[in-house]
């Protein structure tokens, strides 16, 4: 059964599109929706380089996590209004790895993700995050375009 869903979000419109699908899936027996945001460590490290090491990394991380937690609450209000049980998860690290790990650890039935279109250059260099998750995770993935 589809009982627990993981929704990783970067707070973009793409991931907001997933809400309607999750609300529809409610009738398939969803008991819990875990909304997750990953603070990308690589980006924080880059900031550190720009400011020439003058930034206290721990403090930036701490602040990013706090901001993400607050944003998650506001962002997911439409889901809460529909009577779904929601919990939040904020992680720090590489988004793909953290999403895959969380899906396993929390034993979710499905990952629901928005899919950004990307251009050919990006595709060749990186592939999208969602494609990586699909390839590497053992969980079903519902990809919303």
């Amino acid at each position: 059964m589809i009982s627990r869903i993981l929704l990783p979000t970067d707070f973009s419109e793409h991931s907001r599109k997933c809400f309607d699908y999750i609300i529809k899936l409610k009738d398939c027996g969803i008991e819990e929706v875990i909304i997750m945001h990953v603070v990308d460590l690589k980006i924080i490290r880059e900031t550190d380089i720009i400011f020439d090491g003058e930034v206290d990394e721990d403090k930036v991380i701490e602040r990013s996590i706090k901001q993400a937690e607050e944003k998650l609450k506001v962002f997911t209000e439409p889901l809460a209004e529909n009577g779904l049980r929601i919990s939040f998860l904020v992680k720090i690290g590489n988004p793909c790895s953290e999403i895959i790990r969380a899906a396993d650890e929390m034993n979710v039935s499905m990952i629901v993700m928005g899919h950004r279109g990307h251009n050919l250059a990006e595709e060749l260099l990186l592939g999208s995050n969602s494609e990586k998750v699909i390839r590497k995770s053992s969980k079903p993935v519902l990809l919303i375009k």
Partner: protein
Amino acid sequence: MFRKILYPTDFSPSAKGALEYIKKLKDAGTEEVILLHVYDERNIEVHWEVESELHPDESIERAKHEVVKKMLEKNYAKLKELEDEIAHYNFKTELIVEEGIPYQKIIEIAKQNDVSLIVMGSHGERGIVEKLFGSTTGRVIAHGETPVLVTKPRNGNNH
């Protein structure tokens, strides 16, 4: 949102697993299921040689045509079996068998039929063509415009 589902299958275990999810989606409002098999036209080259050895008098075109005809008939029968399997869920169903390049046909048929969602296994039968050019599922995700539910084998291995 889940009203009309396109289920492309190459009859692999991976595709079979995806069918299970369609049953579950009934409660999310699925009414219609299109069962699709695309016979990979790139396999014809291999098959028609066999066919022409069995019937040496026939022309190449005739041999190729025979192969496609046989495959489409055989695969239609297989689709019918899958249709029977979901019969008691009372979906409105449609069966389509076509020849072509699988990911292109899947995207095309999804668009033509205005489907809400494509449900497919993460990896089908991997012939030499797929090893060279990537999986059908991967290409449908990358190039299509329809939401896709990618299912995984039940035992959780991700190969």
